[in-house]
């Protein structure tokens, strides 16, 4: 009765092997590495950089373990710190000829030394949280109100232009919070205006004004439109933050949305909050200017002549220099949106720009006079400008502009992202901020690790003494639980924090409960006079219902923490909940497997090594 079919043993073995493989990467020490990522919003890194870096390293007579393109950056791992430093110097010298204006960010990093076959299996070590490795954490609140106000402001201008176009007279347009109010002289114009506005501006919901004496229309943003404004605002802010954080040269920054209107920024390894805040809070601006395509301009661009008066020389994305007039046609404030799309006739990828009413008026006048000429869109960051794109004006432009030509879909996406990412859609405030020094992080790791090890050892010693062979089996099951838990966390690529380590310790301390329940039950059956094999079987069976019940209540608490907790509590809750689930498997199925393997085949089992089983009258130990 105490035998498992072969497939059950096989399942256990497979689980053990898989858990071992995925736990393994966590034990490899970290090796020094160099990470190359984009230093400019306009530069995109792809796999083609790998051979270039390999060549640079070969020239410098450095042998990396590997050079790999991963995520958004190229990483090269080295055997020692010395070659890491040399490699960093060599790479930054080769990639950034102008040190004042670096195109690439070359940062020192640490990579796991785990062998590549493990990496190929996606067996990667867990991330360490900021409290374990040191760094800066910001929680930022996006001011959604002002994003909505900005939108209403833009709409006010649009309404004014629209009514002028249709020759509808109004007596005033005002913005009142997020609403726009338009006043009229009589009811006829009001009705006419309402028809026009409802057709042309689908984002607004129009209602007649409250007071009867006055002819007034009040437009408010529709809920779905305002939701769209908010979600665009937050994604735009995140993109902008990414670009700015890149400049800090942080190896692995984390920028995530939290909830509806919050952004979390984690910068491991950074210690100076002041500098980080300064960079995060910086604004970038976008400008539209005309390109000087005159003979002198072209000569200056090719480097054969001087830069003409009233113009400046900028480098276009892709490398070609361009002579641009100093006079600014439009600033980024007038640009309300930029989206990638396709041309309705040619189906080639394009970027659609939307301008507000003021911008549209200016661009109409400028474009009318400059058909056939080129207009440059410049992005200024850190006081340095760069031409994102310089399209040719084909015809008179309005509030909707389409940029087309020689673009792939990916390029159209990038360009529109850049146009949008120039500035923050809505202001952000830092509402929570933490810094943890690197030495404190290392201390926290060793403290958490020691807690788990010593606690585990104490439990193991006690269990082995008290329950003998069953104690050893329980300890093995507990160790298996630890292995499974770490493997699952590594598979999920969870971030390990100090509360997470505490949760591992606590979960192990609680998980032993299941084995104690089983062992006590088996003893009890023996005490009642059951044969050893029967005692094992009924012991396990009866304990199971209780184990299930008791774990469900713990699980309820875990889920509550997971749902309502944030930050450190969440880390605790994830580990705790997963630990409860793995403990049910390891304590019941795995330990039973070991017991069956040991005792299952012995037909005439006389005694079980489960410590002394005391009987009220006879006091005879069960072990013969």
């Amino acid at each position, binding site marked *: 009765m105490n035998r498992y079919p072969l497939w059950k043993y096989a399942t256990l073995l497979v689980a053990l092997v898989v858990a071992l493989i995925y736990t393994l990467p966590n034990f490899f020490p970290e090796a020094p590495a160099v990470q190359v990522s984009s230093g400019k919003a306009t530069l995109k890194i792809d796999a083609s950089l790998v051979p270039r870096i390999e060549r640079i390293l070969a020239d410098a007579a450095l042998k990396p373990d590997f050079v790999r393109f991963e995520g958004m950056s190229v990483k090269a791992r080295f055997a020692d710190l010395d070659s890491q430093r040399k490699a960093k110097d060599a790479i930054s010298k080769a990639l950034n000829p102008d040190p004042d204006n670096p195109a690439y960010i070359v940062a020192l990093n640490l990579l796991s030394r785990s062998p590549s076959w493990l990496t190929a299996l996606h067996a990667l070590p867990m991330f360490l949280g900021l409290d374990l490795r040191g760094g800066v954490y910001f929680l930022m609140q996006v001011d959604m109100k002002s994003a909505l106000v900005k939108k209403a402001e833009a709409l006010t201008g649009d309404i004014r232009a629209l009514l002028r176009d249709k020759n509808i007279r109004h007596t005033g347009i005002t913005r009142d919070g997020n609403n726009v109010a338009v006043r009229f002289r009589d009811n006829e114009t009001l009705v006419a205006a309402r028809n026009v506005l409802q057709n042309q501006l689908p984002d607004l919901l129009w209602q007649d004004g409250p007071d009867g004496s006055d002819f007034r229309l009040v437009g408010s943003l529709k809920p779905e439109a305002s939701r769209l404004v908010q979600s665009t605002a937050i994604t735009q802010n995140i993109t902008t933050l990414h670009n700015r954080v890149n400049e800090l040269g942080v190896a692995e920054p984390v920028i995530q949305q939290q909830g509806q209107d919050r952004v979390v920024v984690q910068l491991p390894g950074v210690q100076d909050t002041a500098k980080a805040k300064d960079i995060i809070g910086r604004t970038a601006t976008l400008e539209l200017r005309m390109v000087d395509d005159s003979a002198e301009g072209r000569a200056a661009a090719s480097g054969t002549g001087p830069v003409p008066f009233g113009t400046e020389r900028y480098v276009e994305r892709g490398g070609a220099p361009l002579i641009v007039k100093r006079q600014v046609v439009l600033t980024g404030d007038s640009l309300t949106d930029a989206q990638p799309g396709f041309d309705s006739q040619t189906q080639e990828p394009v970027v659609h720009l939307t301008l507000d009413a003021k911008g549209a008026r200016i661009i109409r006048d400028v474009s009318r006079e400059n058909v056939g000429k080129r207009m440059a869109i410049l992005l200024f960051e850190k006081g340095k400008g760069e031409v994102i794109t310089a399209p040719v004006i084909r015809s008179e432009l309005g509030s909707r502009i389409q940029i087309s030509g020689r673009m792939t879909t990916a390029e159209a996406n990038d360009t529109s992202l850049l146009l949008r990412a120039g500035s923050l859609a809505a202001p952000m405030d830092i*509402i929570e901020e933490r810094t943890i020094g690197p030495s404190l992080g290392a201390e926290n790791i060793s403290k958490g690790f020691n807690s*788990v090890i010593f606690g585990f050892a104490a439990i193991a010693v006690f269990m082995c003494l008290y329950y003998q062979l069953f104690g050893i089996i329980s300890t093995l099951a507990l160790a298996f639980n630890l292995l499974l838990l770490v493997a699952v966390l590594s598979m999920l690529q969870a971030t390990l924090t100090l509360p997470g380590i505490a949760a591992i310790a606590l979960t192990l301390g609680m998980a032993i409960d299941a084995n104690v*329940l089983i062992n006590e039950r088996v003893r009890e059956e023996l005490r009642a006079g059951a044969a050893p094999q029967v005692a094992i079987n009924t012991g396990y069976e009866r304990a199971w219902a209780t184990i299930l019940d008791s774990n469900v*209540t713990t699980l309820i*608490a875990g889920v509550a923490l997971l749902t309502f907790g944030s930050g450190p509590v969440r880390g605790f809750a994830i580990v705790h909940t997963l630990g409860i689930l793995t403990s049910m498997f390891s304590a019941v199925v795995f330990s039973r497997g070991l017991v069956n393997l040991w005792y299952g085949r012995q037909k005439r089992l006389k005694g079980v090594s489960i*410590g002394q089983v005391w009987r009220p009258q006879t006091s005879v130990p069960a072990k013969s």
Partner: protein
Amino acid sequence: MEFFRIRRDIPFMRHALVFNIVSLLTFLAAVFFLATRGLHFSIEFTGGTVIEVAYAQTADIVKARTAVEGLNVGEVQVQNFGSSRDVLIRVPVASGVKQSEVVTRVFGALCKAEGGTISAGQEAAQSGESARQVCSAGGVEPVRLQRTEVVGPQVGRELAEDGAKALAFVVAGIMIYLAFRFEWKFSIAAIVANLHDVIIILGFFAFFQWEFSLSVLAAVLAVLGYSVNESVVIFDRIRESFRRYRKMTTREVIDHAITSTISRTIITHGSTQMMVLSMLIFGGPTLHYFAVALTIGILFGIYSSVFVAAAIAMWLGVKREDLVKAGPKETDPDDPNAGAVV
């Protein structure tokens, strides 16, 4: 080795009244301290700034306190943290003081008190270039910034709300589960017993004015789920005993159930406590109150499950008929093997 050699069922329920009165008194004391002293919430809940600095030599708390108080940033707390060289400074949210500047100002004052000057030095750490504020005085670093935490007041309010929601969720979830799995009387008994644990843990924190942080809240909720376990195990036994021993009275059944699970209760809690003790000893100051909350929770968890939960169920009038509702599988109630069938 066998710790528990119990010949007869221990008559726990004979003293049920005494235990309940003891519980009630402890409970009332806890409520009293919570009401009069209140919890010492960490800045995670109240908003504010925490700065942890490490001195090269043993820290002069008085000097540090005078230096920080001279800044006029509100009611500042300065105290040792962990070792004699680590100092923790808490600055509450105060009107007229910009939160973002508090860290720089406080650290500046501490540095000045040690006779050093602040420079944004470059420190080539192994994990990348990291610049940080460095206080230097004649080539040495008398004080260094270990950790800072700035929490806005609105975040704190939300955390407190979420904490309350989590507690309500756990209580409701466990009650529904127990009512569904056993009987409403048990579910009330278990929740009353375990909430009384929670209140007592909070009472301890209020009495000693220990810092109540997010991790303590996590510990409290984890312990709530855990000590309900205990009640569940005992209730399981009560149900089983009702089925097995038809002639026993309710009181005898409860006594028998508690007696037969007591060894498991002590061993399990002992094991968990070993782990928690290990955290208390090796976990350092960050895990200190977390482990303290767990310790109190585990100790009172044993007490309340053994002496309080079952007693409340008894007062509520649990009967054999409540639990043994002629289930479909139950053919012979006297069959000892039919016990754990649910």
